[in-house]
């Protein structure tokens, strides 16, 4: 087995373990490359099917192309596609772009809070109706007790300490100092009522591994990751007011891989284009403890 096969097998094992153990399970799909690889791995794990709903937190500041891409794949792969958002904050324009709050508060409003309440089911969830192609209010209001996310350990400091199965308390909080043991391939799959688990099948993957796998499997990705001729591409996708493209000539997956292996990005952190990280002391842990992905 080569290293991609090993990574794939471990992730598939974790996905199957999650599917087996959790009745109310979802996959968080940010439309980015990592969670798209995660979605692909779910198709691997379940032999072409995706028996787990995909949840997207729509901040309304996602680059429009991302939403088109999401809905196209949802239709093509017959996904159980659900999105949620912080309607109130958007209506009151409590966003960074509207100048009313700083970046971190904006993240908290549009991502952390929206995620928390969408997962809990106490804010509306919108589910794609495959017959009409439209989103409708989801009748399922059950809280998700298993939440699969495409977090990677190499992204930044706090993520390097994550477990594959990581408990969150009633307030969605992560107790970094008291995490459950994980031995061999046995994970924490029992949890007290009211708590839930975050499940991280991609923990051992690096940014390079993600691209190598996208190449090997020929996984469709958003074109924003590639230079369209202006010498710029996105290395990490977020909301447009807070994510900057990087200078890069890579037009294809192959070129990105070369760039990551030996080129100018081999020593620069992936999230260097994300402004909110800088405001959080570089660690992101303030956001993450509250439930940020």
């Amino acid at each position: 087995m080569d290293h991609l096969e090993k990574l794939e097998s471990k992730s598939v094992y974790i996905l199957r373990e999650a599917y087996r153990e959790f009745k109310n399970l979802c996959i968080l799909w940010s439309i980015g490359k990592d969670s798209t690889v995660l979605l692909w791995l779910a198709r691997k794990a379940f032999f072409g099917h995706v028996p787990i709903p995909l949840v997207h937190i729509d901040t309304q500041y996602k680059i429009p192309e991302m939403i088109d891409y999401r809905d196209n794949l949802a239709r093509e792969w017959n996904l159980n596609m659900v999105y949620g958002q912080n309607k109130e904050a958007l209506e009151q324009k409590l966003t960074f772009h509207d100048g009313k709050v700083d970046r971190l508060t904006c993240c908290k409003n549009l991502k952390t809070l929206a995620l928390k309440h969408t997962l809990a089911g106490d804010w509306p969830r919108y589910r794609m109706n495959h017959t009409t192609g439209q989103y409708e209010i989801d009748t399922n209001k059950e809280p998700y007790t298993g939440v699969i996310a495409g977090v990677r350990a190499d992204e930044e400091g706090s993520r390097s300490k994550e477990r594959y199965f990581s408990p969150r308390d009633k307030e969605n909080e992560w107790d970094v100092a008291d995490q459950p043991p994980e031995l061999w391939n046995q994970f924490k799959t029992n949890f007290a009522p009211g708590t839930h688990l975050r499940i991280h099948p991609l923990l051992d993957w690096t940014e390079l591994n993600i691209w190598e796998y996208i190449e090997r499997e020929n996984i469709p990705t958003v074109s924003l990751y590639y230079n369209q001729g202006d010498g710029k591409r996105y290395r990490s996708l977020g909301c447009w007011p807070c994510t900057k493209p990087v200078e890069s000539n890579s037009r294809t997956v192959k070129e990105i891989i070369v760039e990551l292996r030996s080129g100018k990005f081999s020593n620069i952190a992936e999230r260097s284009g994300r402004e909110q990280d800088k405001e959080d002391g570089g660690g992101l842990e303030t956001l993450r403890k509250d439930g940020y992905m």
Partner: protein
Amino acid sequence: MNQNTREQMNIVVVGHVDHGKSTVIGRLLADTDSLPKGKLDQVKATCERNARPFEYAFLLDALKDEQAQGITIDTARCFFKTKKRDYIIIDAPGHIEFLKNMVSGAARAEAALLVIDAHEGIQENSKRHGYLISMLGIPQLVVLVNKMDLVNYDKSVFDSVTSQYGSFLKNLGVTPISFIPISARNGENLAFRSEKMNWYSGGSVLEHIDGFTKRDEDHLKPFRMPVQDVYKFTAHNDDRRIFAGTIETGQISVGEKVIFLPSGKKSTITSIEGFNQKPKQTIGNGYATGFTLKDELYLKRGEVMCREDERLPYSGTRFKANIFWMGRNPMLLNKKYKLKITAARESVRLVEIVTNIDASDLSSINGKQQIDRHDVAECILETTKPIAFDTIDDIQSLGRFVIVDGYDIAGGGIITSVVETDTSIITDAIKQREINWDTGFVTEKDRSALFGHKSKFIIITGGVNADIVAKALESKLIKSKKAAYYIGPASLKDGLDSDISDDYIDREEIIRRIGELARIMTDAGLLFITALSIADEYDFDVLSKLTRPYEFLHVSLDNNIIKDNNHKRLLSGSHDLEVIIESIVEELQQKEVFTDFSI
């Protein structure tokens, strides 16, 4: 070079608190140029802002909590590469409070670096970690004698640590690859050989890391695949029934005969399934895959798929194991815990503590009848139902398990041998029950004379209609003036069973209570009827034992069989309720349950 073929290896760094693990890693990353650009400067700037001297350890302590306390709380992973291969370095905490985190980190590793402070010498966790390294089955160990700068790079200090710790490891049966004198802070013997310790002729830490080998003998071992799940996704008219799992050891090909343990069910491989991959005829260890089989087997998750032509694992309920305990509450004798071994989950009890070992000095603590937090014990465990396993020496992944207490993984262990026994917790308990049973003056004969029939426990299983058949049978018998009584598990749920859940772990208790009810009802002379939606042969074994001295009759609608302990007979196969009831009554007549024939 093709990066896809680059080898990757997980290495854990362990040792007592403050002996310099994080500094070793930080220094290795810095000296091999493995840090992301700006990371070193960022951490240096943070130190300056907080007016603290920079330390290499801070590179890893990315979390504020840890910087405040200056100790590693949890395992952190960092990535670095040499010309030879890519590494994931796992920094395991040395503080006893965080032993569970250390174990989590170490369990992922293929090799270990154990750091001992030359100045402070061997400490409690130097030994405990050494023990756990051997127990977790990490095959390669290098001991780093750190802080040599604090002892003036004195050879005699190094020699003394080497000889003391070497003999400790020898007692564990562990032979380290080597001992290296280092100063992580000054970078001596880390990435480069030290000029300050010319008396040391061995390689640097980095050279040793590249010298670790990949031990992969799993493909030579007998085939084992724990069944993680059985899928039948019907979307797009997919009619495959796929037995999914990760192959732990060995190889298998389409057309080969397989046996599932502990059930003993057999079939033949029809296909190897996968998504977006070329069709395969053969597959081996490491792959998370799936198979379709020639036969429609009903299999529980956790059964182990094996090749019929190879050595098979043990199937049993009792085994000897070494356990280390991390739970807040001690592990107690005879308390029910959940066992997770491969893909199986079973309830388990600690039936005997052979020796209780203090892992920090390997002295055995005799007579202690519980396993306390951070203790290690050699003990005997018993599961409720048989599980398939190998000993740790034969097949590592089939010989290790965790124990769940409440919601948490509280212990881990390795199986050292199988224990053959004809006694079990349940037979002992029943023996005791029968000794203490306080029978009245009425005899069994008196009751059958009163009711016109003997007593019997009748269990209906299978189909979607088991309860309907059971209720119809009750009606039929009552109409014929027989003393029959039906109760189903649903009626017990919020009453007799209100203190237990329907979790798999409590299923055993649900079955036990039905069995105890059967003992009482049959003793009262009744025809006691119940319906179970799922039950396996172990459940029937338990029910049969619990009902004794009375007998039970099992009607399986799925298999069209009616049977007791000695005989079985085919039912007509009809789905007609009347016909089914008729044949059950007929069976009761044949068994001479009815003393008068008025039915």
